[in-house]
């Protein structure tokens, strides 16, 4: 199901016959698509550009969309700031653990709800669906006390654990389709050949579902990488356990924001996500198509 899902640019051949539009209209549509693409990309361009602009040009009231003397000063300021590299590694660590843990746990759970029939199966599925809607922001207060009671405040664990929980329901829902797509005959054949359930699970099902896991991971990665609220609420005093969003806020100052620093830090924070996104882009789109199709 998901494997055949639409990927941009793949089935374009058959469509023009239906949506036949006249040449001037098509050209107008293409021109507007390009203009919109430029407008949508502009904030990102401006971010990277401003990160490379020398101080004087940023502070100039004449905002030019180019720079003739790119400089690394802003980046230098960012990395010289107390332990920015550490924040980056913290963010990477938190997101990495969340991605791997939630993928594995969700894989097991998705297998349970798709390949077995048991009492309360439907109830559980509905509960996973409902759990997706829970506003995690509203849970900041009880989670704060929970982390305090377990002595987890100011540790990366206080960021990892809630994010695993919040990534799970969606991951389970999305993986369901991928697990379901693996033919049952394959499972039977494996058992006839003498494979145990565990062996089937990890050596046959897991590799087949892996593309789905990648698509799912994008979402858990991004939601964790983006986390601002928990980092702000749970890491209260030990800044060595802080993550990137906090590092970024340092450059906001009451009197005069250091825009160069903010844009450089933003660039450093955005680029890994962009790279990740581009790498899994195809999987992502087909995963989405698979998840929402029919």
């Amino acid at each position, binding site marked *: 199901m998901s494997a055949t899902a639409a990927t941009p640019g793949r089935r374009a051949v058959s469509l023009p*016959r239906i949506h036949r539009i006249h040449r001037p209209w098509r050209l107008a549509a293409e021109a507007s698509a390009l203009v919109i693409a430029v407008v949508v990309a502009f*904030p990102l361009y401006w971010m990277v550009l401003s990160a490379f602009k020398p101080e004087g040009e940023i502070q100039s009231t004449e905002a030019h969309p180019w720079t003739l003397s790119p400089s690394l000063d802003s980046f230098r300021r960012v990395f010289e700031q107390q332990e920015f590299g550490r924040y980056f590694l913290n963010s990477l660590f938190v997101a990495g653990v969340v991605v791997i843990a939630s993928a594995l746990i969700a894989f097991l759970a998705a297998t349970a709800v798709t390949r077995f029939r048991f009492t309360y199966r439907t109830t559980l599925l509905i509960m996973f*669906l409902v759990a997706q809607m829970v506003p995690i922001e509203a849970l900041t207060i009880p989670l704060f006390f929970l982390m305090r009671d377990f002595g987890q405040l100011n540790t990366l664990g206080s960021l990892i654990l809630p994010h695993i929980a919040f990534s799970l329901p969606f991951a389970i829902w999305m993986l369901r389709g991928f697990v379901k797509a693996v033919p049952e005959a394959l499972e039977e054949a494996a058992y006839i050949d003498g494979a145990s359930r565990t062996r089937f699970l990890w050596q046959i099902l897991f590799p087949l579902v892996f593309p789905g896991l990648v698509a799912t991971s994008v979402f858990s990665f*991004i939601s964790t990488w983006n986390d*601002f609220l928990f980092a702000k609420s749970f890491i209260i005093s030990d800044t060595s356990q802080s993550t990137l969003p906090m590092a970024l806020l340092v450059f906001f100052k009451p009197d005069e924001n250091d825009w160069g620093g903010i*844009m450089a830090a933003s660039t450093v924070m955005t680029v890994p996500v962009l790279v990740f996104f581009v790498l899994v882009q195809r999987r992502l789109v087909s995963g989405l198509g698979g998840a*929402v199709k029919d």
Partner: protein
Amino acid sequence: MTNGTNAGRDASDAHGVGDGAGGSPGDPIASTEASAPAAAAPAKVPNARKATGASPGAPAAAARGIRRGPGRGGWTPWLYLAPALVVLGGLLVYPIYQLGLISFLEYTQAQVSGGEPTTFQGLGNYRTLFADSQFWQVLLATLVFAAACVVTTLAVGCGLAVLLTRVRALPRLALMLAALGAWATPAITGSTVWVFLFDPDYGPVNRLLGLGDFSWTYGRYSAFALVLLEVVWCSFPFVMVTVYAGIKAIPSEVLEAASLDGASQWRIWRSVTAPMLRPILVVVTIQSIIWDFKVFTQIYVMTNGGGIAGQNLVLNVYAYQKAFASSQYSLGSAIGVVMLLILLAVTLVYLRLLRRQGEEL
């Protein structure tokens, strides 16, 4: 999904992204179960274990494991589910219970530090909250702001999805890449960049529009408008990509047949395309509602914690400020409960829509 979003847009947060509604064989949603509260989950687990584990034939069948269709599997599914249930029970269900509990208690800095005993307030916190005119103002602002974001996001996303189907590969690729870029941008960096773009002194937008040193974050409506632009920017890609995938998934033979039968473009859209897209539109709409209702980072960063004199507060930020800035944890929790109930209502509407479409789980 994420703008989840977000890419989320906090896919989740971020960009919380759409849930998959992939249909296939399974139990139809039972109406009683549809309304079962999430908190009932852990209570049911032990019963279920008993129920499945107790039937004598089940373990033997599981051991053999050879059967047509998904087997009962005895304990195995619960074994697979255990880690997920432990995590969700401990970090989602229990905190929800705690949230409700705190909202009924007197819980301020004094109680947190253990200086004073916690006392049960009954509905006292809610009474305080509902008597506060600021709460109603924030609630109204949240609803209007979320509605504006949802409508704009859907209009832009669907419009561009249709545009994508009408252009050749190159412009399509350009728009797709730009949208993926916006989608992948973390909420916090997106917020800082948009504030910078609209900066009264150094931003290019005011120069371009000839607004001089007009400050967007100073006025209530202009600040909300600025946040809205950022929210739409990072959440329309999810709608666009999903709807585009949905349009492409419609078999071209169906459209061809309709046009051979002499249906007009409009008729094809109304009678063929729109009904086939409805499930996807439901998913993206619900997802957008949920996502936009929970916006936190954008408001917090772009309006510096809720705007001048709290003029740009939304429920989320309001609850946070009450709890963590003024240590009124019980009031913050009460606001959280209100949010939870609103989102639960949205979820129930969603489940009803799924059922009406004959969607199976």
